[in-house]
């Protein structure tokens, strides 16, 4: 047994960070945030050259065949850099759902180009994590009708859509009857939207008859969003510690005040265990362990609570400048804010974890 990362995994994070430092500095993220037509294809290409889009896709389909733990480590890096590219849906959730439940033809059609980064996929499932308004998609006579809100990795060429019975379908963006409408969130580093289905022809992934396929897909996404929050929160903590080490008030650096030190210590004490929790959750999904679903729910819920605390507290440590746009700290604050709400609120996820243990 070894509860830790392999050298390859550490190397993966180092390489990603190195590329992101160059390809996606804050100034690049700002440009993306201010221009809705920006697809950040420069950032995407830089990461594609490392193989990021194909990280978990089978080598036979052009990918690297790595596991969810590796993907989570990548997501952590993306969160740490508030990277303006799609990842959770297009590079992990959709490819793995295809591998789990798609036909050979479906896999052959999509996986190689997803692996290559030549196309991207979005995911429309949020009706299964607490439906808002009249959200919901029904499959009738070979066609999808209804509304899917809050689509992950929205600027995509193809969408994987769950219907009310948890079956999964592939729908291309330009399919007849499909309307894609952008939503604007506080987090401008990622694109979000809704899909309106007016009798859109769609093909099912046959294996998704088994509702566990959707559950596993969601759990993977939860772990990835938690990892993204971990990276973003770690950045905010690091920034707070660093700022407190230089900012002077009352004739000394504010980091020498016990009040400021203890805020930072509380953040670190809350955040650091999330790292191990996340490794365990991702690895459990890789192993298909019996507690994988419970752990995924708890991981996202707990990470969301810790992330919220760190986002607020790190901003406070920065004082007024944390509230301004000057350092751009709010990009991380908002990234954490969006991750908290996607794929299930903490309350919802704890309820799911309770149900899975027979408590509810």
């Amino acid at each position, binding site marked *: 047994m070894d509860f830790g990362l392999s050298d390859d995994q550490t190397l993966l994070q180092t390489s990603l960070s190195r590329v992101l430092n160059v390809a996606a500095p804050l100034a690049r993220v700002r440009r993306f945030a201010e221009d809705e037509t920006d697809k950040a294809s420069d950032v995407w290409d830089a990461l594609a050259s490392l193989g990021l889009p194909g990280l978990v896709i089978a080598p036979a389909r052009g990918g690297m065949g790595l596991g969810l733990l590796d993907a989570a480590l990548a997501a952590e890096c993306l969160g740490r850099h508030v990277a303006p590219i799609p990842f959770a849906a297009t590079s992990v959730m959709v490819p793995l759902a295809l591998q789990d439940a798609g036909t050979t033809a479906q896999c052959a059609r999509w996986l190689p180009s997803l692996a290559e980064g030549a196309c991207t996929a979005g995911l429309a499932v949020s009706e299964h994590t607490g439906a808002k308004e009249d959200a919901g998609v029904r499959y009738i006579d070979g066609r999808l009708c209804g509304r899917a809100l809050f689509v992950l990795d929205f600027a995509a060429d193809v969408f994987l859509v769950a219907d009310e019975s948890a079956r999964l379908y592939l729908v291309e963006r330009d399919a007849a009857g499909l309307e894609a409408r952008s939503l604007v969130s506080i987090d401008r580093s990622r694109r979000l939207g809704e899909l309106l289905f007016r009798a859109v022809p769609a093909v099912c992934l046959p294996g998704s008859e088994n509702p566990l396929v959707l559950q596993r897909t969601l759990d993977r996404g939860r772990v990835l969003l938690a990892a993204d929050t971990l990276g973003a929160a770690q950045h905010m903590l690091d920034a707070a510690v660093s700022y407190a080490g230089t900012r002077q008030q009352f004739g000394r650096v504010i980091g020498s005040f016990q009040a400021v030190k203890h805020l930072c210590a509380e953040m670190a004490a809350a955040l650091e265990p999330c790292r191990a929790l996340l490794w365990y959750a991702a690895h459990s999904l890789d192993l298909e362990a019996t507690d994988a679903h419970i752990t995924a729910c708890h991981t996202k819920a707990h990470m969301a609570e810790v992330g919220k605390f760190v986002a607020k507290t790190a901003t406070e440590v920065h*004082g007024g400048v944390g509230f301004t746009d000057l350092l751009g700290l709010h990009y991380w604050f908002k990234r954490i804010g969006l991750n908290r709400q996607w794929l299930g609120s903490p309350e919802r996820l704890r309820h799911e974890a309770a149900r899975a243990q027979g408590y509810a």
Partner: protein
Amino acid sequence: MDLSFGSRYATFRESVRSFLALHGASAPAVPPDLRALPTLRWQQRLLEHGYAGRAIPTRYGGYGATPDILETRIIAEEFAEAQVFPGLSGQGIMMLVPTLIEFGTEAQREQFIAPTLRGDLIWCQGYSEPNAGSDLASLTTRAVLVGDEWVINGQKIWTSTAHLADWMFCLVRTELTSPKHLGISFLLLEMSTPGIEVRPLVTMTGDASFNEVFLTDVRIPATQIVGGRGEGWKIANALLSHERGMLGNPNVTLQRFNALVDLFRQETIDGRRLIDDPVWRERLLKLQGRMLALRCNDLRVLSGRLNDRSAPLAAMLVKLEGTELRHEVEGLAIDALGELGVLYRGSPLLRDQGLWQQHHMYFLGLIIGGGTSQIQKNIIAERGLGMPREPKLAAG
């Protein structure tokens, strides 16, 4: 303990209602355009009826009434109930006018108070500097008396409405050899004076509701000082605690809480109303309990001021607890809305024009601004509980 209003107040309330019934329709919408004629006309009407400048002497353009918190409260309640704009506030009316009444010369009062109350003069407040935030007394913007003029150089930050203001009241260092708190004076600048540059400061909400103000060889008459040289810190502090009380006002939070209850009644998850979910309801009720405590505390503080029964600790905690509570009220709405809660301006499906998100962030700013929560805790511990001050550090 007497919570009754009494018959005199019933009559007063009726008079406010009559006024609102008769004139309310001519009030501007909220937020009003500060320079627009309807706004200024409305303000004039409020002044005439004593719904603005109520306790300011008539010789300075006010209504000259004896201060009475119950009347003030009735006015606020009735205007809120009728959803009518209650008149201009802003730092000129809220901060500068009381300062001039307490510390200004007669000439300053005559020059500034009436036009400020009328809305003809808009003020901004130049206190904080980039390196003087929590440690405000370390400010370094300097004014040197050259002949009969102050010559000012330095930079201010967090100056809200600086881009709209006609005048600024500010703290500057004038006594270079005095100890830090005793070297500061309170000056009045006209914003059109050469050498003043205002740059907007964008915050996390996306708005530029604050500014940086750069002062380069700004020359103003020597008379534009309030109080004596070196008295600026004392003068500013007399009103700072008042400002802090405003920052966490639990009565404003009540309006937002009521909106939150409406939201809980309207919004659904999987077709079930939030208000019908015990877990969400519990979060709502927890905040209600805290709010209730702060509202009672507020009544106690106000009443104590009038009845000469001071409750310094109760007043000191308002900013700390009030801004935190407000931030949490806004945050609960976001949480309860789920993915809808993170939508922001310009988005389809957006709820309440994105105000929940905007206020959630803005009140994080207010947890920091006006004395951070850490500074508030120092004040409560040292002044409220009499605990020892931070010991002096060894040199070097």
